[in-house]
Each structure stands twice: as C-alpha cells, then as structure tokens.
C-alpha cells in the first residue's frame, strides 16, 4: 500500500518535472514596485507582453519598494538563470549592490522608470524626463489660469528625488510669470487622502486661488475632490503621471492637464533593447536614456489609455 503511494507520487512528480524541463526559452524577470498600482501594473504588463511576443519565458514580481525584498527577488532571478532583468528599482542607492550582483551573474539588467546611483552595471537605464514634463505641465497651467492670480502647490514626498525634480521644473516656469503668486505649498506625500485634507484646509485660507499644481495625479485627484466638495468652480488643477483616473478627470473637466510618463513605451523599449542585445550581442543605445513626457489636455485626452498614447486610426 505504502509502496503504491510512493510510486504514484514519484510518477506525478516526474511528470511535472518533465513538463517543466521542456520549456527552454530564456527567462525574463520583470521586477516592479507593486502590482496593485496602475502605473507599475501598466509597465509590468507591457514588458511581460512584449517579452512573451518575442519568445521569452516571463516572470513578474513586486518588491513593494522594499530594498531587502528586491535583493531576495534578484537572488531568485540569479538562481533561476534568468537571461534578462527588467527592473523598476526600490531605491537609487539601496539597489546598487543587487544590480551589481545580477550583472556579475551574467544577467542583462535593464532599469526602467527609476535610475540607480551607479553607471556601468546596467545595460540601460531608461527614464521619463521629469524636468521636461514638469515644465510642460506648468506652461499649460499658466495658460489655463490666464497668467495671473494665486495658486497652491502640492508636493510629493520630500525625500523622493522625483518630487524635487518636479517642483524645480514647475518653478522654473511659474516663477517667471509676474502675475502669478504662490499662496501656499504643502507636501501631501503622493497620497490622495492627504492631498484631499490638506487642500480642504488650504481652501479655508485661500478660497480665491486660481489653480492647484500637484506633483502627481493622485494628489491632483485628491485636490479636485476637495475643490468639488467645497462647491468651488473654475479652479484649474494640473497633475503629473498620466494615470487613467486623471485622464478621465480631464475628460470631465475636473482636471485641466497632466504630463504623461510613457511607462508602457519605456517598458517596451527596454525589452526590445534587451532582445537586440541577446540576438546581436550589442545595443546601439547609450546606457542613460531619457524619454520625453507628453502633455494630456481635454483636446487630446481620448488618445491616451493606460499610460500609453494610443494612435487612433483616422
């Protein structure tokens, strides 16, 4: 009886193992901060889809912005003999040693969305141009408010590089407009709930503002909800990221504009370059690549979907 069980179990395991061993396609590991955030999900899905199309085996995982978890997942990628790593990393400094280890193990590393504080380890670091995007959206903000009045700024988490780059980009444009005056600036830590309550408070003191400029779409949407709740009209709100929710709010007029970070395009570029490297042994691109952001307004909002510029057939 016991022997029968053992034989059955052995057969099942052997069968499973043989199924698995047959898949000899090179492995692509995609690591992103989370899979329940639309931005990261969009880039992970885009990378996974492209890699599958090109004939790779794909594994997607999330490190939850935890450098230690990322370290473990990269170890697992090394142990699985991955050929390519597509990584949206968990910290400029904290990711360097993990990427170095992966590169040393022969994995071709392609960083997307965020760069690391070291060059020569990854085959490419592809980012969207946060500075150019911030200037783009700030210029649209100036146009929308008619170049005069008071405004409020919502900043991202202050320890975050992108929060700094974006606010610098905003002010490069806004500070040059003589009619505009900043009434208040607050950090809402990228959070919708925090942006909502901070905007509510700021509206008590500054109900006459012409507009709100936010460091990301999540905060812009929080601000829009607070403005709506206060029964105020005509306050122009702009954000950053190009999230589907923001695009929908732009269509209804609750938000004015956003800068789309081409997450899907960047993910696809990374996989294409990795594939080229696998097949020809080289890419013709530099390590650091900066992809421009695109301005989304009511005029072109219909062309954007899921962090991607969908080209509509004429």
């Amino acid at each position: 009886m016991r022997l029968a069980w053992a034989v059955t179990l052995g057969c099942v395991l052997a069968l499973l193992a043989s199924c698995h061993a047959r898949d000899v396609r090179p492995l692509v590991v995609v690591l992103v901060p989370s899979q329940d955030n639309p931005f990261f999900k969009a880039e992970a899905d885009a990378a996974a889809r492209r890699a599958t199309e090109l004939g790779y085996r794909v594994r997607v995982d999330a490190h939850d912005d935890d450098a230690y978890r990322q370290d473990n997942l990269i170890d697992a990628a090394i142990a699985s003999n991955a050929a390519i790593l597509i990584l949206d990393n968990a910290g400029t400094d904290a990711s360097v040693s993990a990427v170095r280890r992966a590169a040393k193990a022969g994995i071709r590393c392609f960083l997307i969305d965020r760069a690391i504080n070291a060059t020569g380890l990854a085959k490419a670091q592809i980012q969207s141009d946060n500075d150019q995007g911030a200037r783009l959206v700030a210029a649209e903000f100036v146009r929308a408010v008619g170049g005069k009045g008071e405004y409020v700024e919502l900043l991202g988490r202050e320890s975050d590089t992108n929060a700094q780059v974006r606010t610098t980009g905003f002010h490069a444009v806004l500070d040059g407009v003589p009619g505009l005056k900043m009434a208040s600036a607050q950090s809402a830590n990228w959070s919708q709930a925090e942006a909502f309550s901070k905007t509510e408070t700021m509206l008590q003191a500054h109900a006459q503002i012409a507009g709100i400029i936010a460091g990301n779409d999540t905060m812009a949407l929080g601000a829009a909800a607070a403005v709506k709740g206060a029964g105020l009209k005509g306050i122009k709100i702009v954000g950053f990221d190009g999230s589907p929710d923001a695009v929908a709010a732009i269509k209804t007029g609750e938000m004015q504009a956003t800068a789309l970070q081409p997450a899907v395009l960047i993910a696809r570029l990374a996989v294409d370059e990795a594939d080229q490297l696998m097949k020809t042994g080289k890419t013709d691109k530099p390590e650091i690549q900066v992809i421009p952001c695109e301005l989304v307004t009511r005029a072109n909002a219909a062309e954007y979907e899921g962090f991607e510029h969908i080209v509509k057939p004429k």
Partner: protein
Amino acid sequence: MRMGWADTVVLLLKLRAVLVLIVLLILFSALTPSFLTANNLSILAKHVAISALLAVGMTFVVLAGGIDLSVGSIAGLSGMVAGGLLTVGLFGHSTGVVAAVLIALLVSGFVGLLNGVMVTQFGVAPFIATLGTLYIARGAALLLSHGATFPNLAGTATKSTGFASIGQSFFLGVPTPVWMMAVVGAIAAVVSLRTPFGRHVYAVGGNERAARLSGIRVEQIKVITYVFSGVCAGLVGIVIASQLESAHPATGESFELNAIAAVVLGGTSLMGGRGSVGGSLIGAFVIGVLADGLVMMGVSEFWQIVIKGVVIVLAVTVDQLQLRLQSRLMPALLRSRASLGKVTI
C-alpha cells in the same frame, strides 16, 4: 525498543514542520529545475537566516509568555544607526566598522530593555508595549536621516570599509549570515534546554504564579528575553544593511509577522511555556523555502500571499489537534511507557 502506535502518532504530529519542509523541498525540486542546486540552496539559507535570527530571539519572548512586535523596527533602526555612524559619524568623526556594529547592537538591546521594563515594571501588556516601540524605533530610524538612505556603506572602490563582508562574505563556502544563524541558534537551543535560565523561561511562560512562588525572578527573566530579542533584531538589521551596502529607514517593515509565523509554525505556543528553538528554526526554513520556491516557480505575487496565510493557519490548526490528540491518547501513551519502565510526560 518498540514504540506504541500512540507514540508514533504523537511523534509524527510533533515532527509535522519537518515533514512539511521535506514535502516542500521535494515539490519545488521537481517543479523548478534550478531549485536543487548548491548555488540556490546557499542563497535560500542566506534568506532564511534573516527570519531565523529574528525567530530565535522571538522564541524566548514567546516561551516566557510575551510577544515582541518591535523586532522589524529595531532591525531598521539598527541598520540606520550603523549606517549613520559609518557615513556621518559621531560628533563629526566617522567610527570604525566594529564600533558602529557594537553601538547599533547596544541601541537594539536598549530598545529591548525598554520593552522589558515597560512590561515588567509598568505592567503594560506585551502586545501594547512592543507596538509602542514598533512606532518609536521606526520613527527614530526615519529621524536619523530625515527619511533618506545612508548610501555607500561598503566604502569607495579604493578604500573599502569591510562592512559589506558581514552579510556578503563566505566562510567554508557557506554565507556568513548562515553561520550566524547556526551559532546563535545552537547557543539558544543549548541555553533553553540545559541551563537554569532556559528552564526558568519555560516555567515563567507555563505558570507565572507558580514560577514566582518557587523563587524564580520572573521580572528579570522577562527583561532578559526582550533584550535578547532586541539584539537578535539588531543583528538582522546590520546583516541587511551590509547586504544592500546601504541603510534605509523602512527596512524590516512587517518582519515581526514573519518571525511570529516561524515561531508558531515551529510549534511554540503563543500562550507561552511550550515550544523550542529548534522548532522555530524549522519554521523559518518552511517560510523561506515557500517564499523562494513560489517566486522561482513564477507563482503570482497575490497567490504567494494567500498560500503563506493558508500554511500558517493550517500549522496552528494541527497544533491544536496535536494537543487534543495527545490528551486523548494519554492512557495509551502511559501504558506503552509504563511497559518500558519509565513514566514521563
């Protein structure tokens, strides 16, 4: 010497964590070709070492009837203290690696002492006291750098600090953190079983009043368990900072849950008084093998979370089953032991 059937049943239930571990190892080896390689097993053990070190410290606290929710935050704080000392330094002077590590461990032990004092002197429930230090230590870690990372702890290419070798080096082909786990685990196992202190921990957790009446210094024992747990957590923080060559204040979030899960999987009762260090080590291995194996199989992240939860719930269910079965089988157990000429329960 022949065991009775009742002994066999109880023994199998007691060894359930080992059995689960063996089943998982066979399963993952069959399903993932590169799982059963020396390279992967070494990586796996290195990952397990982190939760195992936390679990060993936690075991003493739980055995004495407490719980320590602050271990993850202490790990984060310890890494930040070491990172700060190495990069910014103390009063403008960068300390050496040895001093940085010792001070970080000292700070960790101090947080543990705080836990112990709150529990024993001020009568705060362990859950609440350590929940408080969970926030205090995390906040302190964030304050040290205003939320930023301490980078480049390994030093520059020309001048290495040697800090990176704590978590990244090998001794006799085995990663250093695994040696730490082995040494700390072995010492803890011997202390818990062979020293008066160890037996007192069991006594305090089993029946605090009886322990007090028989002259055991209950307060002292409890404080020591919290300090030890704090130091173990501090060690984990240093190992992680060394592996990442940088210290981030959010390191170690939710580690306490992994440690508690490992302790419970290893058969230690959250009521105190029952369990073992060895069990916790096996529990840590079960969780580590499960986590890495599922990642290598490419199971979706969301399923990984569900499966981990199911395993923990099942483990505790079986634990209760064992207790009930053991008491029901007691007559049979006693009979078979009596026939061997020794009656011990």
